[in-house]
């Protein structure tokens, strides 16, 4: 396998994971912009989506129905989480809020452990077909589904933000919460909406990546953390940044794992995190008024 096809291979698999990171990062940025909270439980939304899909497929539901139901169930769960836990802690300091979301993420993981156990599960790929070959690099059809879903979600998000009332209200909250309140938009409703929207994106991402990676109760941890790194990379305040950060992280990680060392794959993401935080906490696209002393 010559160098070009090797590079192409890394870039393609990087784009696949990058798409997932982009979706996670999108969810992060949405919640952060509307509520100011860093949602450490974001990764668990992916895990829950995939797990419910496994269960619903297991009782015999057709795949499209299982998909929609899984997403709806996760949205409801997250909605309850928001109204229950997060809203009660609105006045708390940022550090307390972080600890709360860490606690929620741990609790969700623990409940998943109790319900589904430690066994890895499998979801069949969305479409049949063998591997695709592109000038020496191989691609699984599911990867195309991942990339396609990411693109579709982005387009949908853009449409919602630009052309629907709720979307514009969300955007208003992101830009200036106080002014939005003056215009009659309720920040509490927007907070709930942001969480549920992120939940939907997260669940979808989890379902779409599941045929490629196994579904386990702790799959959300790493995905969430890396998606978070992607969000920081792109600048926590920008949705475009989140997406580009996700894709960039996926590709850098893949190239690093392939060219330098595959064991340090997870470490690469966190080294990037530290580099970004130390050198340019605002991320690539962020504003310069990030919290630096």
């Amino acid at each position, binding site marked *: 396998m010559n160098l070009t096809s090797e590079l192409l291979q890394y870039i393609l698999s990087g784009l696949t994971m990058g798409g997932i990171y982009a979706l996670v990062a999108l969810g992060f940025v949405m919640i952060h912009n509307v509520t100011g909270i*860093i949602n450490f439980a974001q990764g668990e939304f992916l895990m829950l989506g995939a797990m419910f899909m496994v269960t619903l497929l297991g009782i015999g539901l057709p795949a499209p129905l299982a998909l929609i139901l899984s997403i709806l169930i996760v949205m409801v769960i997250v909605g309850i989480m928001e109204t229950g*836990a997060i809203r*009660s*802690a609105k006045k*708390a300091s*940022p*550090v*307390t809020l*972080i*600890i*709360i979301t*860490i*606690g*929620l*993420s*741990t*609790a*969700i*993981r*623990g*409940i998943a*452990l*109790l319900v*589904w*156990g*430690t066994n890895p599960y499998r979801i069949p790929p969305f479409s049949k077909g063998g591997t695709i070959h592109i000038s020496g690099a191989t691609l699984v059809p599911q990867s195309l589904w991942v990339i396609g879903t990411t693109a579709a979600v982005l387009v949908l998000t853009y449409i919602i933000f630009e052309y629907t009332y709720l979307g514009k209200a969300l955007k208003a909250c992101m830009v200036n919460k106080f002014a939005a309140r003056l215009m009659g938009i309720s920040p509490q409703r927007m907070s709930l909406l942001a969480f549920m929207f992120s939940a939907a994106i997260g669940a979808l991402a989890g379902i779409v990546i599941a045929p490629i990676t196994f579904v386990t*109760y702790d799959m959300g*941890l790493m995905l969430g*953390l890396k998606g*978070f*790194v992607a969000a*920081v990379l792109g600048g926590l305040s920008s949705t475009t940044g989140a997406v580009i950060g996700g894709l960039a992280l996926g590709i850098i990680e893949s190239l690093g794992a392939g060219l330098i*060392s595959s*064991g*340090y794959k*997870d*470490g690469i993401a*966190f*080294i990037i*995190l*530290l580099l970004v*935080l*130390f050198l340019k*906490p605002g991320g690539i696209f962020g504003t310069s008024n*990030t*919290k*630096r*002393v």
Partner: protein
Amino acid sequence: MKDLARRKRLRHSLIALFTLLIFALPFIITNNYYLSVLVIIGIHTTVVVGLCLLMGYAGQISLGHAAFYGLGAYVSGILTSTYEVSPWIAIFVGAVGTGILAYVMGIPIFRLKEHYLALATLGLGLIIHVIFVEEVELTGGPSGLSNGIPYLSFGNFMLNNDFRYYFLVWTVALIAIILANNVVHSRIGRALRSIHGSEFAAKSLGVDTVKFKLQVFALSAVYASVAGSLYAHYITFISPSPFGMMTSIQFLVMAVVGGLSSIWGPIFGVTAITVLTEGLKSFMYQFFPLAGGEYEIIVFGIILVIIMIFLPEGLTSGLANTYESWRYRKEKADDAPKNQ
């Protein structure tokens, strides 16, 4: 002034009483399993005392403290097993090295604020954990250090059973608590609390916030490192798994539950969580046989959420404050009729 002196004497006598109790326990409790649990509680208490100093008094957060714990364990383990260095020297080297690392890494980390700071500590912890797993030649990788870590010993007196190790561990823990207590009630402690109260105000009063934050961070790392070394010489086998993010969160839960602003917080928190976890092990297995893994994480999560929402000051300070406000309200109610 008299009240301050009285409180100081009360505190000192409580500490003395507590020390007596701790050293008397192994003579009362003969069950070896309980003794081993108490040893682990002692080791964890040392870590959490450092963490509470950092979080409660300096107001900073660390989501990666298990990495320092692991560094102490691995330095001790590697130096004593592969290079046959004396264990006491290894502990010292580990502590100093970890402290320096924390200080150096702290310089860029503590320029960040709030959640960026938390994330940087998380990232640091995760990177160190990956190094433990990947540097197989040095650390033995995921299967752990295979050479066999020696027991600690004072000359011919080997600390190779729970009874003897208990005294060493708790001596260290008590020294840690007393030292931390002295820091809190000294100039440094007041400087730390001023930073926690308002960093701007502290800076305007001439407090060198950066230096103090770095010093506390390094001190808390040293505590964790020493505890890690003690762990290594207790279990005589280490692998990367007890030094990952879950353990960092566990330390966090213990610190928060116990109460960040009280000297007794760490012991309370560690004991409460450890007792809960041990109790849960037997309980959970009967009801949920599928859950072979770390089901205590669900308890951590729920406890963390509930405490942070309802009792953010933890068990010790939070309950004390609740008692104080109840007493205050009772006094007001008693006074009211007289004012007519």
